[in-house]
């Protein structure tokens, strides 16, 4: 189509910049996209600083400051379709873990308790105050499409962009990471939970069968499963599956405990207790979303406080 090109805006809020690098990582395919798309506001590629009218708006990152909120609102006002792009935009992302701590605590750790910091100074002039909480994009504006992933694999980015260009529904599979994992799920005989540093896994079999916590079965595939296929357990960076998000009493830890206890000789309660003690790791990417935070059995602040006080484990 050489007629009207699709107009695209992108912007980044509070994030690491990796989602924008992921768009560049379409490599050769970016040329296919550029045949039908004109990139307008895009902090990595163009110089346009305002927000022109656009067909598609990609927002990466979560809402941390007034700037982020404002940028999200501007994008919503000017773009017909808004994509919450990447785990930070969809679920809050890693720095969503800031929700477990007060702003004062964060400042105290960074500026007073660091072993190399010799001053007793807290930045408080010329800098913007941190927002109380880190929130996903859809708590501030309406979102049309969600593409989680940290970052999403170019395979899914390309599918998302081509479907919008061709004005069809994206082929968005709802499979978990296990769907792309080449490891075999067998019943194993592990009797205790193991870790990468004290046990080497057999490359042929499922991590859960061997007593390693792997979040693959509880995590949406937006990555093509590179971690388990490279010898590393899934850490859930693309966020939970739809099943977990929509069912109040299902949760990352209940899903993993259920499956792992059936694949090993470890009791479900042992797995649950372990995952609660390590909740900050297990919920690292998605704790800031209400879809997880509002679950009746989700007590992450208590779990984290217990670990920090040394009363658990």
């Amino acid at each position: 189509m050489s007629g009207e090109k699709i107009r695209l805006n992108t912007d980044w809020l509070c994030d690491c910049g990796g989602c924008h690098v992921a768009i560049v990582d379409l490599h050769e395919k970016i040329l296919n996209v550029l045949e039908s798309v004109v990139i307008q506001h895009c902090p990595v590629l163009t110089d346009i600083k305002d927000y022109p009218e656009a067909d598609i708006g990609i927002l990466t990152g979560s809402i941390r400051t007034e700037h982020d909120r404002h940028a999200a609102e501007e994008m919503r006002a000017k773009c017909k379709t808004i994509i919450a792009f990447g785990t930070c935009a969809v679920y809050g992302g890693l720095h969503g873990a800031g929700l477990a701590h007060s702003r004062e605590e964060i400042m105290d750790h960074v500026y007073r308790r660091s072993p190399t910091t010799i001053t007793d100074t807290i930045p408080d002039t010329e800098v913007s105050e941190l927002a109380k909480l880190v929130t996903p994009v859809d708590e501030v504006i309406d979102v049309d499409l969600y593409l989680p992933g940290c970052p999403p694999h170019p395979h899914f980015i390309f599918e998302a962009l081509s479907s919008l260009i061709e004005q069809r529904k994206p082929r968005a599979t709802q499979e978990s990471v296990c769907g792309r994992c080449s490891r075999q799920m067998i019943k194993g005989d592990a009797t205790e939970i193991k870790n990468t540093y004290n046990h080497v896994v057999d490359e042929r079999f499922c991590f859960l069968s061997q007593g390693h916590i792997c979040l693959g079965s509880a995590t949406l595939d937006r990555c093509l499963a590179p971690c388990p296929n490279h010898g590393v357990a899934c850490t859930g960076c693309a966020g939970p599956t739809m099943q977990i998000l929509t069912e109040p009493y299902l949760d990352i830890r209940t899903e993993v405990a259920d499956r792992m206890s059936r694949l090993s000789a470890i009791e479900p309660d042992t797995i649950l207790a372990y995952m609660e003690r390590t909740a900050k790791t297990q919920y690292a990417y998605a704790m800031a979303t209400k879809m997880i935070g509002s679950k009746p059995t989700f007590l992450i602040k208590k779990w984290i406080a217990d670990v920090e006080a040394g009363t658990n484990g």
Partner: protein
Amino acid sequence: MAKTITIDPVTRIEGHARILLECNDAGGVDEAYFIVNELRGFERILVGMEAHTMPQITARICGVCPTAHHLASAKALDNAAGVEPPPGGRLMRELMYMGHLIHSHCLSLFVLAGPDLVFGLQGAAATQNIVGMVDANPELTKKALRLRSLGQKLNEVVGGRGIHPVTALAGGTAARLSDAHYERVREISAEALILVKELAPVTKELLLKLLAENPVLLDKLNVPSWYLGTVNGGKLNLYDGDLRAMDENGVIRAEFETVDYANYLVERAVKRSYAKEVYLNVDGAEHMYRVSTLARMNVADSMETPLAQKEFEEFRNRFGRPCHNAVLQMYCKLVELVYVCEKAVEIVHDPALRGAARVPANINGSRGIGHVEAPRGVLIHDYKIDQEGIIRAANMIVATQQNTAAINKTLKEGAVNLLAGNDDEKLLNGLEFVVRCYDPCLACSTHAVGRMELDVEIAVNGETIRRIRRSPSCCK
């Protein structure tokens, strides 16, 4: 006089570079501040997480240099366990890192600085970007973008992912390189070396032309400072080695292991920025220092690979040791780009690459410190781990914060000359160029191509008298 002048207010007022100039009544500049207005608080977020996941988690600190965090973290865990990875694991880590550095240096040299090289500093803003470059110099641009892609693919094949790699862990890497992956890295690294040999002379020519056309760059951006960088047996190394500190006269004043960093580096928090400043504490005094490519070239005696050594000698003959000129960071990056491509091929041909990938590593109840040379300079991770394997304290020294004091000093000196003219656009261009020379990660993550969004405030006795912002209307 006591009046605020706001030029073209912009909608975005946070999350980008801000510069504050504090002037005295006589019109001189007392202080200049480069203000970083972002804080995610990873030192707190990491506390309470499982230590063994740190290489994956901390990669997310930066999507622009994730592999640097990934590896500094894995090395900190090796240190906590008191082990060294076997040669296979070590080489896999180095190989993924060479891939990352190819990608990162290409992005910085060709996508960010490339338009200045192709069009000069006075190029039209509309074409001053990568798309304009494709039209103006398609051969150079396509090869440069291809080389960047190859680097990212190399990182992905070995690290599992290009952005936020996952395979390095305590004691080595998760698994050996498979036959199929080995074949892939052999092809990629061979092509990368061919490309860099074609690109390097052309790029160097463009760079020298830029310097010749703008003599002011070499004249005015000389800021003497100390330097900190990594050497292994005196040779420049990006993955491993000791930290070497050099003073402004080129004398090596200290050489220390990563684990001793707290004896040599002190951080000072400042009221006006979320980024802490870092100073080298040597012989009882604190010294302003710089990191990144220029610092690495200054502290190193030589390079490990033949083509890079040739480029290194040429650079040193031209600009001496130490070279204090911030604008030459770009030249140094080019020398390093040649090095990382050669080094990738060298690693691929080392039979040890296919050997054992890891050793057992018990990290519990220990403290671990590790560092690498991130693309923009020294990066240190330091964790305290409890008996249950949970992080109890985390400290990080990142590249950009170590340059903050030097950026402020360069801005202060630059602003004195620029303010006299009372020409806003000239002031913005000048200050922006100063910041860009340091390639701070903030700039690379809030802007990319073309002119930086800037907000400059000029104050006398604490009262803002002038505020200049680069807005959409003057940037299109």
